[in-house]
């Protein structure tokens, strides 16, 4: 088994998952020495009744909580200042973010402010500029969560943040919160997570601890994604996917970001497409390219993708190829399972040759085997569905 000469791994996130997980939050807060959390949620979350579930979970706890459920999709610094004042004036000592996206980003950045002073938000933007642990942060993912919310990354008001101290102390995955979403949202979130997990599992800087998270995430996605897309009533499937996304977030916080991530992110932003769908369609093509450059961890990817039996019965020199095929098959199955919405997005991608060059340039890929021409070639292949 492969073991690197040297590695570091850090994941402060505790995962509580399953039936009545939210009711354990007061106990967990006590262990974090906190007793008055401020709940931060998006508008949609409030409208869908999910805030009520949280409030109910605290009912017998003896704890009062603050609830803000108005985070817009593009929050600004004014919101941070207002929430900062509430946090300070009302004696809060912990944060709970519901859902991914802007609510989680707001909570992470707010945490920088309440753990120090509001001005720190500027000084801490960038890579590893937070120097000490922040206040307790709990993330409660919903189905739309991609795993980004439990990662070390945050994006807020035009600034990028990356620090292990931004990772939550706890991710609470409760079936009452992982409610059905439309097929495109569900698939985009899962493919976002699958891309991160697969790239963490095959990258040169991989280590056995990040691998454990990535391996489990891949397994759970492969076992559940097509089912959930076909049948949104699959409650256990949705819970499993939310678990997988959180685990992928832990894995990719401990390795360098991969090519499919970088290209897919820029492509999603420039072409106004869900990033996860872009990453998903790029992933097998990036892996193929890496394979031809001798990326020998790709064969190992067959194990979480297909399980012991398929791995064992596939010839050694065919394993990597088979792994890539399985991802292609997954994409096909997803298109088939939802009656067209996903495949329509993939088919109708209108990316001009110029945009394609633009994406390749902006993605900032600096791996030796992926120069700008190489990236453009992959994007072209994906566009043409080859």
């Amino acid at each position, binding site marked *: 088994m492969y073991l690197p000469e040297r590695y570091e791994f850090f994941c402060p996130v505790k995962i509580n998952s399953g039936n*009545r997980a939210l009711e354990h939050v007061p106990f967990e807060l006590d262990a974090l020495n906190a007793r008055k959390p401020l709940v931060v949620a998006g508008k949609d979350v409030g409208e869908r009744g999910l805030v009520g579930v949280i409030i109910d979970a605290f009912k017998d*706890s003896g704890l009062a909580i603050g609830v803000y459920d108005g985070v817009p999709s593009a929050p600004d610094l004014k919101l941070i200042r207002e929430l900062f004042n509430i946090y300070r004036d009302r004696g809060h000592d912990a944060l709970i973010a519901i859902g991914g996206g802007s609510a989680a980003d707001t909570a992470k950045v707010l945490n920088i402010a309440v753990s120090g002073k509001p001005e720190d938000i500027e000084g801490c933007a960038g890579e590893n500029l937070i120097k000490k642990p922040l206040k307790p942060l709990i993330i409660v993912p919903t189905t739309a969560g991609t795993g980004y919310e439990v990662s070390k990354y945050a994006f807020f008001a035009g600034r990028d943040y990356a620090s292990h101290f931004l990772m939550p102390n706890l991710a609470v995955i409760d079936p009452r919160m992982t409610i059905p979403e439309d097929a495109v949202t569900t698939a985009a979130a899962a493919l976002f997570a699958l891309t991160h997990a697969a790239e963490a599992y095959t990258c040169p800087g991989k280590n056995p601890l990040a691998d454990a998270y990535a391996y489990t995430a891949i397994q759970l996605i492969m076992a559940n994604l097509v089912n959930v897309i076909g049948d949104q009533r699959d409650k256990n499937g949705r819970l499993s996917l939310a678990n997988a996304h959180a685990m992928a977030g832990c894995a990719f916080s401990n390795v360098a970001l991969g090519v499919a991530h970088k290209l897919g992110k820029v492509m999603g932003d420039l072409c106004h497409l869900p990033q996860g769908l872009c990453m998903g369609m790029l992933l097998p093509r990036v892996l193929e390219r890496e394979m031809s450059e001798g990326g020998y961890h790709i064969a190992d990817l067959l194990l979480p993708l297909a399980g012991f039996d398929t791995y064992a019965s596939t010839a050694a020199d065919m394993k990597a190829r088979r792994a890539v095929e399985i991802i292609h098959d997954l994409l096909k199955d997803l298109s088939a399972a939802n009656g067209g919405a996903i495949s329509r997005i993939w088919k109708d991608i209108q990316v001009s040759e110029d945009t394609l060059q633009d994406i390749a340039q902006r993605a900032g890929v600096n791996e030796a085997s992926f120069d700008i021409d190489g990236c453009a070639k992959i994007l072209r292949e994906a566009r043409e569905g080859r």
Partner: protein
Amino acid sequence: MKNFREVAAGKKSLKKDYVAVMMWFMGRAIQAAAAVDMAAKKEFAGMPDGFTFALSVMPNGPHMIIGKDQRGFVRYKGWDPDGNKIDLDMKIKNIEAALLLFTFQESTTLATARNRLVVDGDVAHACAVMRILDIVEVYLLPKIIAKLAVKRYSGWSFRRKYLGRVLVYVRSIFSF
């Protein structure tokens, strides 16, 4: 601020009442089992006289308190932790977890495996209490539920299963 509100601490009275009643019954049944069941007797014999243990729900009850008095008799001592020096407290982390336990959706084994219980006190005695809870569950529950509640539902003689069950029921209700 718009969209902000503070929510005061609430109550789940009905659920707590249900758990309290079940604990009352369970407590009486433990007292009864200690008098009629050889295995339960043996488990209590391993505890020092004056030893008191509780099964309770965090953060503020209900509680089920069982004590062994100075002469070695096992008594259900009610639900009020005040005035009792509790040597071993087995705490269920929240009322919903307690409800799963007392509606028999989750056995004590599963609750332990799922980290829903916190043991405060000596682990050796906690093991004995877990076995006593198993014994009492087999007495009180119909076979189909008890089979799920305990790891091994077998090896009980006809006499222990049926006569014992009657005795435990009668003693739990009339308390002697």
